[in-house]
């Protein structure tokens, strides 16, 4: 029997010809990403008393969750990390000005098809947008992999999501994912690998593939993939740090489940408080008053996302009772949107522009007060995540966010994009 992408990557990185779902293997990850949590691993190394790392070229450190430093404690953690990176000569390092780790590592060509990548961030599933096996781990594990190069991995079963049809106007990858999470539930793919395939996926941009694989985490997934293809190659041209192969699943690979989605039948979706799988069509929640709109996060603060929002906000004004916070995902995105004029359009409309990074999604600025409502393009809406325990978070696409920022209430983007 053939292998799924998850099986292939784990076979390859554990030195075995084949692996089966359920098997536990000792794998050697190609890259271990750690963000601000790196300081905890550095402290653990000091405790262990070992300073020799397994392979510096497999380590990536990116400072993103609280950037620039919010407090003297943050600044101290940053100092500790910079000193550590310098002392060891860790080549892949991006400081507080670069943006969200996931996006930066993909833009800079460190993420390639078929790689096994661990990250101290649950949304590491996003690396599947380029055909890599990305999965979240804790800092204790990062310390261990820094030292041994090795990690235990249970080979996951795979779920195949076949997407057919075309997106209707004002419907995007985010809407599809919110609908899928609503259908399968937040627990629907726990411990599993999700492979996206079908006609729609074949022509989908890397930006939208990132949204797919990022949001797959909210299905409980261990990893998610869009199998690498010509679109992947085009994105990686001029970026890839080394040669790579287009790893594809075998035609007879075993899938625990297959789900088919007809994109043509979708409408704009909103995920309601306080769970991501509490997803509803826009018509069920439109008119809900909002106080803050956050265009940011590794889910939807890419260049395409900023362009879509700017397209709707051009020549219009953000509602006077709404604070629109725009946090571009990375410095590259920031520059691109600066050159295209999207940033100017957004700021002219009344948006507040912050530095690239995780921003309000990670509770770094943009806190919500008692009873306040935020519409966000991020990937999580759990109780109290962005501030007060009595605040509420709704999740949507950048288009729905822009339409709502204008209206002051959750609004249907089809009015602007029909």
């Amino acid at each position: 029997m053939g292998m799924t992408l998850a099986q292939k990557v784990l076979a390859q990185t554990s030195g075995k010809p084949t692996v089966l779902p359920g098997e536990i293997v000792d794998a050697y990850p190609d890259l271990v990403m750690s963000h601000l949590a790196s300081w905890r691993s550095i402290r653990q190394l000091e405790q262990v008393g070992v300073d020799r790392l397994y392979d510096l070229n497999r380590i990536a450190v990116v400072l993103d969750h609280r950037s620039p430093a919010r407090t003297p404690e943050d600044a101290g953690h940053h100092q500790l990390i910079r000193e550590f990176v310098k002392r060891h000569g860790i080549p892949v390092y991006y400081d507080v000005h670069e943006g969200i780790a996931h996006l930066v590592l993909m833009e800079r060509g460190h993420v390639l098809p078929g790689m096994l990548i661990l990250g101290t961030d649950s949304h590491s599933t996003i690396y599947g947008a380029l055909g890599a096996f990305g999965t979240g781990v804790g800092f204790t594990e990062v310390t261990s992999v820094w030292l041994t190069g090795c990690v235990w991995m249970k080979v996951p079963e795979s779920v195949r999501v076949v997407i057919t049809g075309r997106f209707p106007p004002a419907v995007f990858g985010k809407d599809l994912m919110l609908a899928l999470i609503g259908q399968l539930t937040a627990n629907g793919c726990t411990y599993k690998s999700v492979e996206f395939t079908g006609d729609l996926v074949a022509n989908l941009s890397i930006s939208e593939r990132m949204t797919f694989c990022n949001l797959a985490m909210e299905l409980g997934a261990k990893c998610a993939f869009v199998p690498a293809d010509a679109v992947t190659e085009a994105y990686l041209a001029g970026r890839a740090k080394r040669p790579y192969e287009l790893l594809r699943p075998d035609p007879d690979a075993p899938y625990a489940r297959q789900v088919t989605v007809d994109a043509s039948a979708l409408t704009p979706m909103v995920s309601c408080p306080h769970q991501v799988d509490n997803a509803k069509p826009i018509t069920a929640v439109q008119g809900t008053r909002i106080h803050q709109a956050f265009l940011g996060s590794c889910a939807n603060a890419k260049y395409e996302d900023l362009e879509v929002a700017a397209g709707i906000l051009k020549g219009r004004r953000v509602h006077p009772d709404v604070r629109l916070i725009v946090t571009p995902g990375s410095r590259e995105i920031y520059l691109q949107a600066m050159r295209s004029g999207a940033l100017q359009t957004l700021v002219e409309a009344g948006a507040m522009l912050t530095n690239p990074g995780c921003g309000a999604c990670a509770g770094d600025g943009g806190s919500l007060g008692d009873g306040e409502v935020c519409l966000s393009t991020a990937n999580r809406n759990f109780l109290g995540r962005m501030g007060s325990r009595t605040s509420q978070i709704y999740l949507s696409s950048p288009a729905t966010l822009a339409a709502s920022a204008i209206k002051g209430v959750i609004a249907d983007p089809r009015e602007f994009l029909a």
Partner: protein
Amino acid sequence: MSALRVRGRCWKVGDNIPTDAIVATANLFKPYEEMARHVLASVHPEFVLGVKPGDVLVAGRHFACSSGRAVAPKALRATGIGVVVAESFARTFYRNAHEIGLPILECPGITEQVREGDELDVDVEAGLVRNLTLGQTIQAVPPPPFLRGMLKAGGLHAYLELHGGEFVS
């Protein structure tokens, strides 16, 4: 060494408890003892006021979803809790708990068979939960031998030390 046999009072929470509710963002950089004073405060405020060393936390499906937040199991351990038994766990928490040697046990059906305040006797190795108050025994899913070894050692780093830096899965 982690104790793999735990006996104590049952504390219950529901489905889909996010790590945000275990350690709120505002407390992420505080010492574990300080984090422990606020664990689950938004969903079960009495928990931190009454929990005693060796008590048992029982949760529904998909416990500790949301951010990986590897401090979450550490904060839970700092409350004195001896074991977490849940219908199911989010995968990052499942790894993170084993790695710091916090015993956890997957036990489908558990929430129907125990009540808050019941006296529970949990045998992690055997995968058994005994409800001493109701006189019932519930079969759980024992961790695979490799993870049992890690729990016995007291976590990932202790485990690697025992095995000369090598995994033996």
